[in-house]
């Protein structure tokens, strides 16, 4: 399973049951990354990302259990710690801003090896940083 997640500077994901932010440039990037692949998400994410084209979309409340090797999972509110063992890669989009948060990514990224990192301008964000992490050998 390859995880995709958007984070603020504190690793925050949501506040009061709502995503912290959004950016069309990230949506476009997710579409490109997942082209031709299977992308899992929950019903909340489906409202914003469900219209992505060029991939097999799968909506399920238990999608982290169902996602298989090589398949993508878009995380907005889920705890990843229980599924850490099945995660092959983590793709993080950093907003480079701080938002209110009450749900945070519960993985310690320092335990993962950063393989790629690059920055691009967002539609509403000055700079978005994309990083790809792999499990340390």
């Amino acid at each position, binding site marked *: 399973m390859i995880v995709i997640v958007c*984070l*603020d*500077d*504190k*690793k*925050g994901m949501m*506040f*009061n049951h*709502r995503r*912290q*932010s*959004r*950016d*069309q440039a990230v949506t476009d990037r997710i579409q490109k990354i997942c082209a031709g692949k299977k992308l899992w998400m929950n019903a909340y994410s489906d409202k914003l990302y469900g219209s992505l084209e060029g991939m097999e979309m799968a909506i399920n409340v238990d999608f982290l259990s169902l996602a298989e090797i090589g398949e993508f999972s878009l995380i907005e509110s889920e705890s990843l710690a229980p599924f850490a063992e099945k995660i092959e890669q983590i793709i*993080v989009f*950093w*907003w*480079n*801003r*701080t*938002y*209110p*948060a009450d749900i*945070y*990514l519960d993985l*310690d*990224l*320092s335990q993962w090896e950063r393989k790629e990192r690059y920055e691009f301008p967002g*539609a*509403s*964000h000055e700079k978005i*940083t994309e*990083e790809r992490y792999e499990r340390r050998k």
Partner: protein
Amino acid sequence: MKKTALHRYLLLCMAVFCLLFTSCGQAEHTNLAGTGEPPASVTETPQNEGTSKPEVITTESPSENGKEIISIEEIPAYSGQPYVEIDGNQPKFPEKDKTKESFEQYSELDSLGRCGVAYANVGKDLMPTGKRESIGKVKPSGWHTVKYDIVEGKYLYNRCHLIGFQLTAENANEKNLITGTRYMNTKGMLPFENVVADYVEETGNHVLYRATPIFEGKNLVAKGVQMEGYSVEDEGDGICFNVFVYNVQPGIWIDYATGESREDGGNSGGGKDGKKTPAPDAGSQTGQDGADAKTEAVEIRGNKKSKIYHCPGQASYEEMADSDHLVVFRSEKEAQVAGYRKAKR
């Protein structure tokens, strides 16, 4: 939609009549500040001079728009988090304001020179199109220019916009600036401004946004700010919050009556009664390596080259802010888990 000149004139007359011959504004203000001071009335804010913002005429006090002003007694004591949820995070905006028409309202300063409620329906048309200019000439109530080494950026107080510049482009407006700690400004208020600004930019929708400074008695410095937000077009699906942001600075004692302050030693927050309040919650979250260190550096600064971390107040803490080797941790424990050791000085 712009109102006609006649309409504006009639509304203005009604507002003047209301303020002169009724006591409703006074009652609201007494609740707001708890002082019994004269009312913080609302004036029209000139908005179209040299800007592209729509002209908006308002005659009602923001505090009359269904606002139930909270009292400081209802707010839990600061416990290490820059803000706390109120009423289950549900704001209370009147239905009549949930429209697609942008507006902004600022209260007149009261007799003590204090700000009142700032209220807006933030749309893209209110957001800034030009550069921000200096606000240094404004001296909000309780203002002191004072520096401490343990405060990020040294200065204890910031001129805090009640409604952030990025939302309504109000800059050196004395009705929109209060004396706030660096901590409240950057850790408490800014994240909420950010989330609203992003949402409006990305969707083009409107967000009802209200910032209410809460003063205790005749204090010149607010104990904090109630912040409320609600996205209109999607009925709160995108934005919905109601929080109180604490006007504290960890390690600094503040006399809210005057704005006087002193270093309190240890990690206590300020309080008029001198009670020590907890240090910011260290949590367990680590952000992106080097992420925006200049605005998020209250926590622990590690040097990834030397594997040494520095705490606020330590010799090299400030220097690390600009280091290419900076890694920010939210706690000493987190730094230690990552293999770092504490600096000796």
